[in-house]
């Protein structure tokens, strides 16, 4: 199975072998990353990092990954200072840069932007988040974190909480998990922010899916919390009802060997007191972003 030269756009079409090859390579990259090594395998290669929506964390993670592999990074992190602000289309930006680079990493507020870019150019494109659709590199680092901790992915029950409608990390992670055996996906969200119906239909073809009516964390091997942005729920009273908080009292009900994850930044979904619990793995998860992105870049370009 090879990802060489291909785009990395969505977890929907990925298969288990592709995912496993990335996870295996991530492990190798991890030991190099732990030693703070700079490799030479991407020497002379350029990555264009185009962030049409600011996300310092994801951009830095991709940037360090490329640099740790010995490559160069160009691009922008603020669309206000780029040609985009003068009205240039994504199509034209890609065309203008394609001769200069070996890889595009694109974050964009519109769904489907990375796919459009991939259709415009022969240079491989990595989707670093397209609107509320997908964020597949996040799914890989989530799986890597789970695998590192639980030593397996098959047979796990994963509970996802929060904004499941617009939560691209939840969408990508769900599809990626569904490629494994005997996985059970549990969902808990305010009624306005449920998982899109067509995704549930797709996922039900591959694994068990359960929508919970209350925040029952007791069955899950992984509890994956996500932020509910205020602007998603107009009515302030409804927003107040929709928000949740995982604190020691909730964690008390979690399995002793469960993991608590979150694609950071968090706001109030997880109380700071939970950080001290050994089951809290979100900082570990964030740290794993670099080696996993090294593995993704390397799989595509090496």
């Amino acid at each position, binding site marked *: 199975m090879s990802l060489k030269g291909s785009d990395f756009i969505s977890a929907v079409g990925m298969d288990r072998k592709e995912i496993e090859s990335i996870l295996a390579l991530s492990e190798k990259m991890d030991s190099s990353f732990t030693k703070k090594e700079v490799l030479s395998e991407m020497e002379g290669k350029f990555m264009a990092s185009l962030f049409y929506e600011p996300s310092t964390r994801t951009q830095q993670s991709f940037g360090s990954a490329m640099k740790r592999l010995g490559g160069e990074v160009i691009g922008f992190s603020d669309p206000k200072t780029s040609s985009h602000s003068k009205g240039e289309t994504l199509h034209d930006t890609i065309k203008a840069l394609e001769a200069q680079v070996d890889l595009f990493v694109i974050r964009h507020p519109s769904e489907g932007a990375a796919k*459009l870019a991939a259709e415009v150019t022969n240079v491989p494109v990595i989707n670093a988040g*397209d*609107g509320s659709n997908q964020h597949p590199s996040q799914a890989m680092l989530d799986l890597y974190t789970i695998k590192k901790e639980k030593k397996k992915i098959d047979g796990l029950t994963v509970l996802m909480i929060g904004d499941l409608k617009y939560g691209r990390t939840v969408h990508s992670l769900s599809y990626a998990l569904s490629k494994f055996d005997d996985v059970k996906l549990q969902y808990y969200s305010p009624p306005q922010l449920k998982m899109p119906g067509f995704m549930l239909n797709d996922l039900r073809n591959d694994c068990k899916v359960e929508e919970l009516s209350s925040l029952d964390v007791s069955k899950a091997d992984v509890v994956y919390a996500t932020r509910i942005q205020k602007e998603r729920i107009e009515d302030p009273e409804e927003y107040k009802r929709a928000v949740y908080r995982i604190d020691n009292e909730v964690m008390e009900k979690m399995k002793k060997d469960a993991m608590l994850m979150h694609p950071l930044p968090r706001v109030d979904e997880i109380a700071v007191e939970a950080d001290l619990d050994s089951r809290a793995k979100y900082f570990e998860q964030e740290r794993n972003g670099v080696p996993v992105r090294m593995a993704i870049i390397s799989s595509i370009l090496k």
Partner: protein
Amino acid sequence: MKAKDKDMLKVKKIENGIVIDHVPQGSAVKLLTVLGIDEDFKGTVSVLINVPSASTGLKDVIKIEGRSLTKSDLEKVALVAPYATINVIRDYTVIEKYKVKLPEVLEGVIHCPNPNCISNKEGNPKLHIKERNPLKLQCNFCEKVYAEKEFKF
């Protein structure tokens, strides 16, 4: 066909244009809208609603004088009336008759209903057939799936 029906069709015969037959009952008006036929259209348009049909009970039929159908028109017809038959008329004679066919990929035919989809900002919309019965389309870009009532012509 009964003698009476035959007479009726004779009266409505058009010189040059198209007859769209086997339109699902109740879909004729929608089909005209989708084809952009409105009060500014100059040719004669006859719309027959609730026409008895041997195979489906009742059907609608549309006859349009002085109009031909492009590839994109035909794909729109197939979305609204998947079993429609097109009769091309020249000098009062049917010179061509064929069934519409819905292709696997619809490019530039309908918009993606998701306002935040990149295809509504630049480039051309492209949707794939996800399921045929009932018809569901999936956007090539934002990956969202739509049922018939959501299609945006």
